[in-house]
């Protein structure tokens, strides 16, 4: 399988804190990568560097084998032109912990918005795609309401539909169920799982080990900006090979 996204020696610092420390990562087309780790380990920051919401201090990001997102100016990395960044971001869908639906737009308008303003699609075409995506996430009947009337789980599914409507080549999930009541987690994971089954490339940051084990091709344990361990779920969770830090972390979760 070809590599869709590659990080080379990526470093991100916040003042004196190194949130992402010389990370190398290759994500293959169709691969499901799940990143786990304690709070403040840098996993969300790492995820956000992948669609340039977080700028890196050094390193290189390659999307479909092309270095992208940055140009070097006077020895420093500088973000590329807005036009190029926007084009890149429209190909990489992202789902946030806090959903971040546009509250002033109806559910349908939320899913249509990017298609119209970014992809310049006609209203009719955007609407058709939007309905398809809402159906996919199981919310075809809530298209005309405002997000405030939805439950958290429904909001997150709309957010997934909004990202999918851009026909992205890969999806990033930043703790998609952390803001949800426990009984609503299932419906969101179901949606993500069905997406995984369709072969979507995804990077998921989560605390939910069960889901990681179930859906991941690769599980990465991150701590203090470093990858402590990475492997298949089987390797990762099998008791004899488990890294002491990971077992400690898993114990805390239980």
């Amino acid at each position, binding site marked *: 399988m070809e590599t869709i996204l590659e990080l080379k020696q990526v470093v991100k610092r916040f003042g004196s804190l190194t949130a992402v420390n010389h990370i190398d990562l290759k994500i293959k087309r169709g691969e499901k990568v799940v990143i786990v780790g304690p709070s403040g380990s840098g996993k969300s920051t790492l995820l956000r560097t992948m669609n340039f919401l977080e700028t890196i201090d050094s390193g290189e990001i390659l999307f479909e084998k092309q270095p992208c997102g940055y140009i070097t100016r006077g020895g420093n990395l500088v973000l590329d032109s807005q036009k190029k960044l926007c084009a890149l*971001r429209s190909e*990489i869908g992202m789902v946030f912990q*806090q959903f971040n639906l546009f509250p002033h737009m109806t559910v349908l308008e939320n899913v249509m918005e990017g298609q119209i303003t970014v992809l310049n699609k006609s209203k009719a075409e955007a609407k058709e795609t939007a309905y398809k995506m809402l159906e996919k996430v199981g919310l075809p009947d809530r298209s005309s309401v405002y997000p405030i009337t939805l439950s958290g789980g429904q909001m997150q599914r709309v957010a997934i539909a909004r*990202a999918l409507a851009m026909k992205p080549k890969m999806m990033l999930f930043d703790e998609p169920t952390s803001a949800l009541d426990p009984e609503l987690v299932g419906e969101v994971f179901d949606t993500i799982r069905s997406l995984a089954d369709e072969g979507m490339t995804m990077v998921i940051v989560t605390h939910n080990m069960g889901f990681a084990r179930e859906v991941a091709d690769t599980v990465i344990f991150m701590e203090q900006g470093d990858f402590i361990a990475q492997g298949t779920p089987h390797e990762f969770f099998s008791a004899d090979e488990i890294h002491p830090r990971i077992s400690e972390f898993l114990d805390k979760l239980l």
Partner: protein
Amino acid sequence: MTILVNRFGKGGALLASLFLLFALLASPAVSSAGGESDAILKEARDALALGHIDQAQVLFAQVPAPGPDGDEGEFVYSRMQLARLFFSTKNMSKARASAEEITAVYPDNAEAKNFIASVDRSVRPEWRQVVDDCIRFLPSLLKGASMTLILVFFTMIVSPIGGLLIALGKLSKTQPFSGISWFIIWFFRGTPLLLQLFFIYYGLPAIGITLSPLASALIGLGINYSAYLAEIIRAGILSIDHGQTEAAKAIGMTYSQTMRRVIIPQTYKRIIPPFANEFIALIKDTALVSTIAMVELMRAADQMFNAYFNITVLVLAAFIYLIFTTAFTLLFEKIEYKVGVYERR
């Protein structure tokens, strides 16, 4: 009598004697009528002198209406005296009736007519007086008010646009936009509007720019309010959750698309209450342009107050301002409800 006989001859003598007879018969009646009026008037004056007003009234009323050759003077005098007596005892209807007796016989009698008019004026209720004042002042006040509205509406359209540009400038990280915005806010918020208007109207001609009072007023109000609204808009933009910007970015929106489609529409609900505040202040601030030769509501009221010293004109002006501010308050409540519709479950 002999002369008559001589002149008319025999037949004439007959006629003359007949006339004489008639005159002799009639004359006591006429002279007695004249004498009667005199007597009544004398009696009435005496009564009046003694302070017997009721009696005087009765007597004056007895002076008869003049016959074919009756005495106009005595009749008019008696009825006018009567009318004045009634007037002095505040019996307006009887006073008016007495004067009308005169005008019934002598429609052109100026004294009676003036008296009737002054009776009418004195019986007119106070509210009629106020209504008449209102009718007198309103046309000029409304003309001034329409100018006030022109100033307000123009500023209401221009200043949000100017304010948005200044706010975006101040939020931007690129010079010179943020510097220019900072300067505009610093200067126009930091000096009195009155001074700015003076500067534009009286000061700019010194560097060769001469503006009409209206143009000066519109520019002054426009920039001043843009500076105030800019800070409200900036606060509105900053108050929107950063996640909204990230979500818009994540689907590939540019900065301007994000602002236009996602961020600014969400600020409406938050900036409308402070906008309403500013626009209500604006309605009253337009009074300041009267200092640069603009005739708006306040100036119109001031001019008429100085001409008539009538407090009604100021009360009216206050009412017009209150009508405007009330209408704006209601309008903005409605808009606020409308733009916030997505926040109701």
